[in-house]
């Protein structure tokens, strides 16, 4: 498929104040009403206070540091008491049935946990007898592509991030897995980190899981 630009266009009208001629990062953008001709990036950035974006980025990095440091009990501090932690499965479907390639909620999933159940998984690791993680994997969760968008409620944010989780265990065993997290995070000044994850959907980039287990948190 080839794309050709039309060399004969003569449209050079840029007099509208809200055209795409406004440069990226314009500090006055937030104050300006978002019109139909505002570019997507300006709209996204205007919707979220940069201080919040910075806080949530740090929040996600601190979360995985706790995991990589094997402080699983502290990991629970990042989650609301009424949280949902869900990781659907994937299958390969033909194009006309592609909408079904990710499992629906309440069908197949690797995790479908409330806070009590997450704690149960953490408690299992804390027995130091969960032999699949005893001694624990040396893991490194690399979180990237963090995008914060406004949620529906006040003080609520939808945060997408990508992960590259590497681990090694024993002498020769190593593997990695990538995927995407979609989080709904709320501001809660009374919480340990000032924010709490209400919902997390983890989407692994595998149909058949090509690693021997999913014994970390993601």
């Amino acid at each position: 498929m080839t794309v050709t630009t039309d060399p004969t266009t003569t449209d050079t009208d840029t007099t509208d104040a809200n055209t795409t001629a406004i440069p990226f990062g314009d500090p006055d953008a937030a104050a300006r009403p978002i019109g139909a001709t505002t570019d997507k990036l300006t709209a996204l950035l205007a919707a979220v206070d940069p201080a919040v974006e910075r806080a949530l980025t740090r929040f996600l990095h601190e979360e995985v540091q706790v995991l990589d440091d094997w402080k699983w009990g502290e990991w629970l501090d990042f989650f609301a008491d009424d949280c949902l932690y869900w990781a659907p499965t994937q299958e390969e479907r033909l194009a006309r049935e592609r909408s079904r390639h990710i499992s629906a909620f309440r069908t197949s999933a690797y995790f479908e946990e409330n806070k009590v159940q997450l704690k149960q998984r953490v408690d299992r690791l804390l027995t130091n007898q969960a032999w699949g993680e005893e001694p624990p994997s040396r893991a490194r969760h690399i979180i990237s592509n963090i995008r914060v968008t406004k949620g529906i409620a006040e003080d609520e944010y939808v945060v997408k991030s990508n992960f590259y989780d590497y681990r090694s265990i024993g002498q020769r065993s190593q593997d990695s897995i990538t995927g995407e997290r979609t989080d709904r995070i709320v501001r809660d000044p009374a919480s340990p980190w000032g924010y709490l994850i209400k919902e997390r959907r983890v989407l692994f980039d595998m149909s058949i899981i090509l690693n021997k287990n999913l014994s970390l948190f993601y």
Partner: protein
Amino acid sequence: MTDITELIDIENGRLSGKIFYDQEIYEQELEKVWKRAWCMLAHDSMIPKKGDYLQTYIGEDPIMVVRQKDGSVKAFLNQCRHRGMRICRADKGTAKAFTCSFHGWAYDLAGDLIQVPRQNTAYPETFERGDFGAVRVPRIQYYKGFWFGTWDKDAPDFEDYLGSAKYYLDGYIDRWDGGMEQVAFHRWVLPNNWKFMAEQPTSDMQHSEITHISAATVLNKGSDAADRTLRGNDPVGRQFFADFGHGGAWYGEKGAEVPNTGQAMQAYEAQPEVAEMIARRLGDDREVRGHLNIWPTFMLLGNYTIRVTHPRGPHEQEVWAWTFVPKDAPEEIKDSIRRDVLRTFTPAGMFEADDALNWEEMQHILKGKVARETGYLYQMVGAPIQWDEGCYPGGSSAHVFSDNAAINMYANYLDMMTSDSWEELMEKRAQHRMGLPTTPAAVQA
């Protein structure tokens, strides 16, 4: 061909590590086990409507399993007869035909070749599409909701293959009038020989109390955990084993509480009308759920994770696991069963995750020559074997923890690997029990 007779010492309960490591032995398994045994292909609930299909495997051979227009199920090798491309690459779906994405050869639901591009202009007149349909799985049998298949035209009927294991399998899959349905599906790869996994539900209930101690410690009362604490050192229960290598075990006396299933299932089955239904279908003495394996790798656990494992070379296997629920149970019961399995016996499962480590290390260590020769011990055979004891057909013993069923599995494996046909295999079966010659009076089958 490797003669593995020297590698499996049934009488003394010793197995050489070579049978889990050697490439030549593995190739022999593909020929003598996987081209011959009955394998579970699909359940009705996975392909309910005509045109529904799914991909699976028999051994390393990819197959398509397809619901036909007349309601029957057919299976064929998922390999284009032209140049060997995988005909269908989707895991499942609904179709009217399957077209290969290489040169466009097309097959119907039964695997018959229905279109070859340029057949009229580029192929000789003698070319007959009818000669080049996808390779059919020649024997398909339906058993209580499940479809089984084998490549071997001379295999005994599936129910004969089950033999005395039928009684125990029915205890899992034939309890409810409305049957079962599949509600979840998970797949993962394990870096170890397939026989490590097959042996576990066949004969190794014991590993759970150490391997899975962390899960037992944290799970709620009413599950495996609480029962284990109360069970004591020698819990009541039985182990069974059958011809062709099937085996399993369960805790509890007949009619008693069934551990290894969640509270939701127990509550559902305790209801009078459900209990009556089960008793009507199976009889009063059919509390046999714990673990079970139908050789080679059709495994069932009493919490209704039901899986097969596909061999992937001597050092790897691919587990395909489904969660099943009673079709007519209330939605909240079904959801509870589904979540119970999800959290315990899927790749992140609190039980499943720990088995992987055992098997990975076992496989890795087999690289060592001395380790391979040292082999493994199956000498926990103190439990007296009973044959056709009371209501329990085939071999069994009144002890949950025993290597008897594993010995039986490997004795049958040895027979399969050293027989050139089903006929020869059946003759051997008539002569052995537990791999040992039967008494003279019983030799004549």
